[in-house]
């Protein structure tokens, strides 16, 4: 294993770089080169992790990822930190709102979006033997935990963290905390929602999603990602391909957040992604039918 960073990871990578200085390389501000290097390292049998802020890890070197680890099917781990709008005041350049979409479309690319750091840890361990590349979209926060998740992870599976008959809420990433919060607010109003976490985006948890959705009339997807190509799109594919009768409500980022900046929670609220807003959207959707 080797760890490459494109000059980011202050106060994050030191435990590794201190312990294994000979297997740690700061390649400088050069994400394309970092992925090219990783391809050459992996061809020789090594397992390189390449690290940067999510948009710089995924979008800048995208063609290098496609023609390198994906085309050669090599075990390069692309780690993007701070997916969604976690870099709040830093603005659009630092947001990753399409990374899951562009990674998900690539054959051979495993895509993992942990909801908290315990699940991230389990996901890295559980995918250690995956022979091809993996994109990890990590949250920055190592304090928040998704209640009931307990660090569970399995490729191709969802994790159900709350049961309920009226609707199914499916969340990707740390926003699962707000999705669960919404379900609790709804419960107080007598609306009983199941909540599931999707962290294995590719391979998609098709069977689990179909089982969850099949006997419910409403499924709500929650993600800090654009509408096209992310979790909502994936669930739409399952609903359509399986001919499921549920209606789909996609709670996501609908426009480029290029107007104002603010904290992560402020930005997520702008797009209706806080627990109370999500609960309100579910009530409205259920009442509309």
């Amino acid at each position, binding site marked *: 294993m*080797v760890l490459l960073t494109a000059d980011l990871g202050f106060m994050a990578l030191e435990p590794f770089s201190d312990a294994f200085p*000979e*297997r740690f*390389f700061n*390649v*400088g501000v*050069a994400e*394309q*080169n970092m*992925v*090219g*290097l*990783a*391809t*050459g*390292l*992996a*061809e*020789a*049998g*090594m397992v*390189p992790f390449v690290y940067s802020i999510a948009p710089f890890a995924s979008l800048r070197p995208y*063609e*290098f990822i496609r*023609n*390198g680890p994906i*085309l*050669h099917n090599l075990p390069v781990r692309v780690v993007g930190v701070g997916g969604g709008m976690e870099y709040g005041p830093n603005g659009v350049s630092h947001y990753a709102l399409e990374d899951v979409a562009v990674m998900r479309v690539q054959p051979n690319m495993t895509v993992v979006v942990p909801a908290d750091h315990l699940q991230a840890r389990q996901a890295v361990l559980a995918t250690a033997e995956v022979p091809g590349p993996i994109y990890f979209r990590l949250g920055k926060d190592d304090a928040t935990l998704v209640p009931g998740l307990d660090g569970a992870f399995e490729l191709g599976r969802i994790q159900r963290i709350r049961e309920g008959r009226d609707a199914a809420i499916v969340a990707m990433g740390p926003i699962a905390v707000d999705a669960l919060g919404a379900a609790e607010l709804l419960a107080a109003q007598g609306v009983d929602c199941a909540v599931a976490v999707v962290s294995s985006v590719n391979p998609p948890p098709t069977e689990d999603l179909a089982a969850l959705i099949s006997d419910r009339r409403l499924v709500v997807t929650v993600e800090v990602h654009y509408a096209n190509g992310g979790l909502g799109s994936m669930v739409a594919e399952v609903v359509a391909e399986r001919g499921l009768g549920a209606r789909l409500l996609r709670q996501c980022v609908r426009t480029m957040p290029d107007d104002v900046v603010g904290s992560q929670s402020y930005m997520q609220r702008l797009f209706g992604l806080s627990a109370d807003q999500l609960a309100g959207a579910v009530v409205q959707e259920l009442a509309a039918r």
Partner: protein
Amino acid sequence: MTPIQGQGVRRHILHQSKRANVGHIGSALSVADILATLYGGVLAGKPGEPDRDRFVMSKGHAALALYAALHMAGYLTQKELDTYSTDGSHLGVHPHHGLTGVDFSTGSLGQGLAMGAGAALAARLQKSRRRVFVLLSDAECNEGSVWEAAMFAAHHKLGNLVAIVDVNRQQALGYTADVIALDPLEDRWRAFGWDVHTVDGHDQRAIATTIAALSAKLPHVLIAHTTFGKGVSFMESQIRWHYLPMNDEQYALALGEIGD
């Protein structure tokens, strides 16, 4: 290892590009002598051996020259070579790593040197003496990623990395001097911290001698001055032969000039 003659590589290039009716002939002819030299005695080890030298055909559009060299080195049969660019073939216009003797798939310019630097770093980490050779085109040096990799390799003093730049002074739509001027190319590589050598890219003895004498504990680059379309007078330095296939008359003329 059996020596390979550049003229032999050229004959295969002409024959296969005529049969397949595809272009990129001029680019392939310009690197024929470089590839003949590499596969005729420079590259150590055989395909599949973990400690073999690695080769990255970063200018993937000249893959036909690579296939010809692999064939003459005994890694590709005539039957396989004859599938070049046909339906169901493993021999595309750009090379694929699924083919014996091809370590890295290429075709998108500017990616090979980074992969090569990674391969060289891997050799160092694995305490192997194997070397990594990367063949770039001069216009490929338009890509910023080439220089990202150049900086990395120099910083880490990857003396097991050898880049060869095929300076044929042409690119797809014009002469490099008119599109994006590259001179002074030697100075640019030197300024990036590389051990720079200028060679005649058609002088196999000079290429081999230069590589054999490499000793600096720095990444090495051979600035190989070549003629686009080398060996076929009507193709030499003619932009249109970047893309054009040959008609029957041109093929006969070209073969006559290359000789047996």
